[in-house]
């Protein structure tokens, strides 16, 4: 998995937010502090941490949705910014947390899924956009006859499948999943995770998975990076993090989920999410 050059890398990423305090002073808050991350081809890297640890800010910098205060984002060893952002988006797509609010409620599914292909200048497929959209809908397990519906006419899990179809429409190399399954209930979560894994096996996407849910992490991650207070405190293989965490914070984080017998589940390797729950 690793060893070769990273697909997407964040180098020394720092993000400060400043807000105006009283008496004209400015308070600065460092949300992400000197974070470096490497995502390799075909792997799933989970970025975990508690709320406010800076994992979402890191993800948004890596997706180039916000600009880092310091540090760089490199895709295949090159930087893309400004006018070349389109080329970056062609390779890096994002699936967001809340499937409903993330999809424009006034657009039909076909519009939603085909927009990235059309505006990122992909060649028009032989069968036209409609055929391509239907093919994508089938791939993510949606009924292609529903392409003229609006997002509100779908369930949460289905809506997230629309989001996934939209993300893989341009055949990117990296998909950043920002809490992509946290808004779904557990049984739907498992099926969406299964879909993501299938897609990865077929097309070798690299996933950056932002989550606070360790059950999800154990289900899908190859490698894990643990964040706390804007810094990465530990990085390692799934096995190693779950069975032999090196840092106190990681141990606390794992212990904070009392229902999960992480040692047994991690040792089992391919454990299904239900088996981890007692």
């Amino acid at each position, binding site marked *: 998995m690793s060893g070769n050059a990273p697909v997407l890398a964040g180098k020394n990423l720092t993000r400060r937010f400043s807000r105006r305090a009283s008496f004209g002073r400015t308070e600065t808050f460092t949300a992400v502090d000197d974070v470096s991350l490497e995502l390799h081809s075909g792997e799933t890297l989970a970025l975990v941490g508690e709320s406010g640890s800076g994992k979402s800010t890191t993800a948004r910098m890596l997706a180039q949705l916000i600009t880092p205060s310091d540090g760089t984002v490199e895709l295949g060893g090159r930087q893309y910014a400004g006018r070349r952002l389109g080329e970056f988006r062609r390779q890096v797509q994002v699936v967001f947390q809340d499937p409903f*609010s993330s999809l424009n409620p006034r657009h039909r599914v076909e519009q939603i899924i085909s927009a990235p292909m059309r505006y990122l200048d992909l060649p028009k497929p032989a069968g036209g956009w409609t055929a391509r959209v239907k093919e994508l809908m089938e791939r993510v397990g949606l009924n292609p006859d529903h392409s003229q519906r609006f997002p509100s006419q779908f369930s949460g899990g289905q809506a997230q499948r629309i989001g996934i179809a939209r993300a893989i429409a341009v055949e990117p190399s990296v998909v950043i999943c920002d809490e992509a399954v946290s808004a779904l209930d557990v049984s739907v979560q498992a099926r969406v995770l299964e879909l993501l894994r299938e897609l990865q096996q077929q097309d070798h996407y690299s996933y950056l998975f932002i989550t606070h849910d360790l059950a999800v992490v154990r289900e899908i991650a190859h490698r894990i990076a643990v964040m706390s207070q804007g810094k990465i405190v530990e990085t390692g293989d799934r096995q190693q993090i779950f069975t032999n965490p090196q840092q106190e914070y990681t141990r606390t984080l794992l212990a904070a989920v009392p229902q999960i017998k992480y040692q047994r589940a991690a040792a089992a390797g391919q454990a299904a999410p239900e088996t981890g729950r007692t």
Partner: protein
Amino acid sequence: MIWFLLRRLGFALFTLLVVVLLTYWIFFALSPDPAAQICGQNCTPDRIAQIRTTLELDRPFFPRFFEFAGGIFAGRTIGSGPTAVYCSAPCLGYSFQSGQNVTDMIVSRLPVTLSLAIGSLVLWVIAGTIGGVISAVFRGSWWDKAAMTAALAGIALPNYFVALLLQYVIVVKLQWLPFPLNDPSISDPQSWFFSYLLPWIVLALMYSATFARLTRANMVDTLGENYIRTARAKGLPERLVIGKHALRPALTPLVTIVGLDFAMLLGGALITESVFGLQGVGKLARDAIGTNDQPVIMGVTLLAATAVVLMNIVVDLLYAVLDPRVRVAAR
């Protein structure tokens, strides 16, 4: 959809009937006796009685009202014997002052009012949208602050003041525009345009100020939506993110406000028309109020009410066009 429309039209008709009844009653019960006013200072009781008979003021309320309401839809014959005149539908009666047919009076004033209303509508929607969108996209910038201050001024300043000021500065002092005509005709487009330009600007300043502030507020809200972030993340160029994803939901609720403001203008811009000496419906209403010319006031009131009621229906239909979800729900 057809049923929806019919239902709305039926309801509109009912609303208008209530408006007619109420205005008719107000003038019947509350206003000073028009006969005494017409008669003037050297007046005898006999003369007043005679005028009251001619104007049919001596008859009881309901027969008069039903005759009037019937005349609007079917036309009616006024008076009897050789002096009787047939007044075709929509009959609003005859002016107490000039003896002219009120419907004809209003129709002859409509081109001016329509020119004024449509021209300023175009100007205020364009100016308001551009101002509001730029303010929302670059909020906190000097443009945002300047535009919103100007908008506040536009709302706060009375429009007769702005009208007089602009007329004095631009026409009298700087002489950038020719002196506006009182009765510009569209057959001479150039003088038509220049005569209306200032009134348009005055009205647009007032309406676009509200419009720009609301556009900005709605736009700031929609720009914060998650699907805007999605649109950026999936790689849409910023102009499409703003134009296709943010602008539409921001403007849809404003259709109501534009529709109602426009309807009000169709009922005549009283002050602006008076300041610029334009012979529109608003001027007609103002003159009629000055002389207590009840049939004319009734007529203009009814026109204004009709405009408001009809624009409400138009607004509902526009909603269906602008928000595709409404169409699905209606189906």
